[in-house]
């Protein structure tokens, strides 16, 4: 392997985002409908589980209402799912059928512009949904503190991390049936990343496995922000997500370069 040759990033990733924004502008109804998803989630939790479960131990070590425990986690899960959804099938289509990236690479844009632009757009869109989610939480009265607004940038980081990994994986997909493999990973992440119950529920010898999940780190961050509980462990959680994002961006750019700049 040769060393990264110069000229793989032209600093024009924003133009790729601009294109996506232009395309999305025509489908704004679909974008708005995406805001309904958190409303459904939160209603289901508040009406059902909240009554059955009562309280759980929160990040500060005190009991909190169940909906306040689970709402930040659902925000994290929605950010992850949205990012994966946004970067897998659409990217596969643009890469294999539309030849969009071939056209982009014939301009001064390089593979890093394509990767950062597409992942960046998935993050922008995810952040927009997160903002809606937090607004709905506030309207439903499940926002524990004003610190909870910090959940928006955290959710953006989660979206960025999973979008970059999603796009990297999308470059390997050769037929639509292979998308099932991605679901095979995403669903357990969604269910077992302390989304619905705290880490302490798991037997001690299984807790490390849960902590391998990047979503776990995202959810912990969100929960701590929601309740305004800050500690040094948060740096570790951020580092996991930033690391994942970096790996995803580099892997995506290399794959696009290897596939299209042959």
């Amino acid at each position: 392997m040769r060393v990264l040759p110069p000229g793989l990033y032209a600093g024009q990733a924003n133009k790729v985002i601009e294109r996506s924004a232009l395309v999305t502008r025509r489908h704004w109804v679909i974008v708005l409908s995406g805001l309904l998803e958190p409303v459904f989630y939160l209603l289901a939790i508040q009406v059902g589980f909240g009554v059955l479960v009562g309280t759980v131990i929160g990040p500060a070590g005190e009991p909190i209402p169940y909906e306040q425990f689970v709402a930040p986690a659902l925000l994290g899960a929605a950010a992850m799912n949205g990012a994966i959804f946004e970067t897998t099938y659409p990217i596969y289509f643009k890469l294999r059928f539309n030849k969009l990236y071939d056209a982009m690479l014939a301009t001064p844009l390089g593979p890093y512009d394509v990767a950062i632009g597409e992942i960046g757009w998935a993050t922008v869109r995810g952040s927009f949904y997160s903002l809606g989610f937090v607004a709905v939480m506030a309207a439903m009265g499940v926002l524990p503190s004003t610190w909870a607004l910090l959940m928006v940038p955290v959710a953006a980081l989660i979206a960025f991390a999973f979008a970059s990994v999603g796009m990297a994986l999308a470059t390997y997909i050769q037929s639509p049936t292979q998308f099932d493999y991605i679901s095979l990973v995403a669903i357990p992440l969604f269910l077992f990343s302390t989304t619905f119950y705290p880490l302490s529920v798991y037997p001690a010898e299984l807790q490390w496995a849960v902590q391998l999940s990047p979503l776990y780190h995202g959810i912990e961050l969100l929960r701590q922000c929601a309740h305004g509980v800050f500690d040094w462990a948060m740096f570790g959680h951020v580092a996991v997500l930033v690391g994942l994002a970096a790996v995803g961006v580099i892997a995506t750019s290399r794959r696009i370069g290897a596939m299209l700049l042959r």
Partner: protein
Amino acid sequence: MTEGGVSQPLVSGKALVKRFGDFEAVRGIDIEVNQGEAFGFLGPNGAGKSSTMRMIACVSPRSDGDLRVLGMDPDIDGPRIRARIGVCPQQDNLDTELTVRENLQVYGRFFGLSRAQVREKAVELMEFAQLSDRANAEVESLSGGMKRRLTIARSLVNDPELLLLDEPTTGLDPQARHLLWDRLFRLKQRGVTLIITTHYMDEAEQLCDRLVVMDGGRIVAEGSPSALISRYSSREVLELRFAPGEQAGHEAKVEGLAERVEVLPDRLLLYTANGEAALEQVTARGVRPVSSLVRRSTLEDVFLRLTGRTLVD
């Protein structure tokens, strides 16, 4: 042109090689394209034309040899070169999620043009491509010829000094081809340097000042279309058509009547300075073809001479 050092070639390649694994698509070619020239790569599918084009377009690193485009090395200055060239790929890769106008504007933005510049440029290019009335149409609703014109228009968005066209008219009907040729001719008159790959000899003869014939990854001949024809073919060609399979039997009978005879599946080609005279002699020898035709030599004949094969089959 370069001998006096008057102008530097826009593209120069020396011993240029492109390998894909064990397969050598381009096997050490030398090329030089000068300012304002329309340069062609003529050859059958798989001759290495597109691989060469992709190397010049800085989207495919060379495996060996030397390459300079606009005086720069694609391995080092890829983005800077791409900023100054236009590329029309073999297969249209228009943005199907955008309209005709948006395709041009968004592409212009990739080259760093301002919003005001791309708005203006899109209007000008739609005019050039005769697509003004389809400005807000979806790309999918366009005909093949229109898509091709839009792809060419898009490749002009940065006012390129060098335009690369990979089989610009393959798959188009004759009318669409002539319209396209007309547009390319206008570009040439404006001083845009063109590099064209084609497997149509009429296209090469129409558009190219100079061309190389490629076969199996190598350059087998080089020159202007007329020079190639006079060097490798006769002035005229007499075609004698027979029922398939019968042509070979007549080969011996026409011996000596032409400088050279080619045997194709359904006909004999007699290369001679005077086709009509040859036809009289053929008839005098009692050969009765199903039909006969006297025509001028084309690049197709040059190719047949050089490779023993026809270009389009």
